[in-house]
């Protein structure tokens, strides 16, 4: 299930990526956050209770939308644009 709902700009070219190893598609111009949350329900697990999180501020301030890329980089999903073939993985978080 998706969290976000696309209301406009749906005619853009598709961009293939993988989410936790599974094939997925987004649209050109999507942020990682949009690409993930239009096909899934969360972005990361929290650091002390592995609670599901899906971002909060969308303006690069809250740091609650971090995801990991194939090259090991940890990026803010709200401030990073999706690229073809990207492998995005979600950190499950930790229980204290």
């Amino acid at each position, binding site marked *: 299930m998706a969290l976000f*709902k696309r209301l406009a700009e749906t005619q853009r070219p598709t961009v293939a990526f993988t989410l936790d190893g599974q094939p997925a598609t987004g649209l050109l111009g999507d*942020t990682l956050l949009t690409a993930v949350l239009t096909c899934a329900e*969360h972005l990361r697990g929290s650091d002390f209770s592995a609670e599901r999180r899906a971002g*909060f501020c969308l303006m690069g*301030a*809250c740091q609650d939308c971090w995801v990991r890329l194939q090259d090991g980089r940890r990026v803010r999903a709200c401030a990073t644009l999706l690229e073809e073939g990207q492998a995005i993985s979600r950190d499950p978080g930790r229980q204290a």
Partner: protein
Amino acid sequence: MKPIVIVGAGPAGISAARTLLDHGVTPCLVDESLRGGGQIYRRQPANFQRSAKQLYGFDASKAEAVHRTMDELAPLIDYRPQTLVWNAEDGRLDMLNNGRAESVEYAQLIVATGATDRILPVPGWTLPGVYSLGAAQIALKYQGCAIGERVAFCGSGPLLYLVAYQYAKAGAKVVAVLDSAPFSAQCRALPALLGQPATLAKGVYYRAWLTAHGIPVHQGATLTQIDGEQRVKGIRWGEHTLDCDAVAFAHALRSETQLADLLGCEFAWNSLNRAWLPQRDSAGRSSILGVYLAGDGAGIMGADAAQMAGERAALAVLEDAGMATDHRRIAVLEQQLASIQRFRHGLETAFPFPEHWAAQAPDQLMLCRCEEVSVGEVRAVVDEGHWEINRVKAHCRVGMGRCQGRMCGLAAAEIVAERSGRGIEHVGRLRGQAPIKPLPFGVEVQP
């Protein structure tokens, strides 16, 4: 020669850059985003098709003007998009641009760092599907998405009605608007709001439009719980419950003041903003020579004021360098800024801060979403005799996480003040620390 550096390419920063360039001075404009414009005039990616009218409504021409100015300036100045300023000290900024460390020495600095939503947490606020009002607006404007299928808008402030209206207009299902401010407060505020009739008219229009389109607007309604396990299932207020799968909430805005703090600017308590703000004169001069402040980052006044303040601060930089400036223009700007300031008093009356929030917050409520610190844990530290916010932070880690208290810091101060029986202005100010946002390991450093 060292440049004049502007941090932030929103309405204030862009207007400051324009003013400097018009006077023959080429500034360096540093901005964290990919395309300038700031948050309220956030630009969609270049391949999106919606018109400015669709995106910005009544403010389309203002947004277009800001964007046009940005596009004109970009090739003419030292414009550095996608660049985070993570540290500032006397005469120097440390920055991160696409994984590369850079630093720049400035002759003068204009800090135009903008604002984020002011958040008063409610139980369930960390669930997927809960966003700030600003976030909900960015999802729509910048990405063409709604944050869910059935969205509730809660809290208070002008953004509440604006974003609910924008969502409904874009075809989203808005299930309710919960305004924590009672209608009587908005009536009381009318005299001051009439000073900016156009802005007042817009607010009245959004409110009326929502009602005319059958969207329930509840005034004096305080969100008390967001329900759900893995994601949002519904909300509660008073005796009421409502099913929904997304919630956007906030209580107005808060200034981003970390850089001003690192620069050593003097701060003072500002009761209108209910926040500590860097002090500035009517031109935007801070307490530090060569450091100027403009826009919402120095106190919330909105985009129109930010644009004027950016121009005013740039003119102050030029005046202080002994250059000729137009004194009539300066007088007009200062007069208009003063008038908007009076309007701000009206807005604070119309959307008063919910002073009962801290007393009513349950102990189990998670206050700090980074470090997962509950209201009860903060209260326990206060009960041990601590009342200074940085001290409380040291004891329980509230505000110590990766957002540096941007989301929870003001709410934590409210809890400390209420529990310790002190006024909110007497519990201190959460200090900023470099790096003001997290940096990755393995930053490339230019020799």
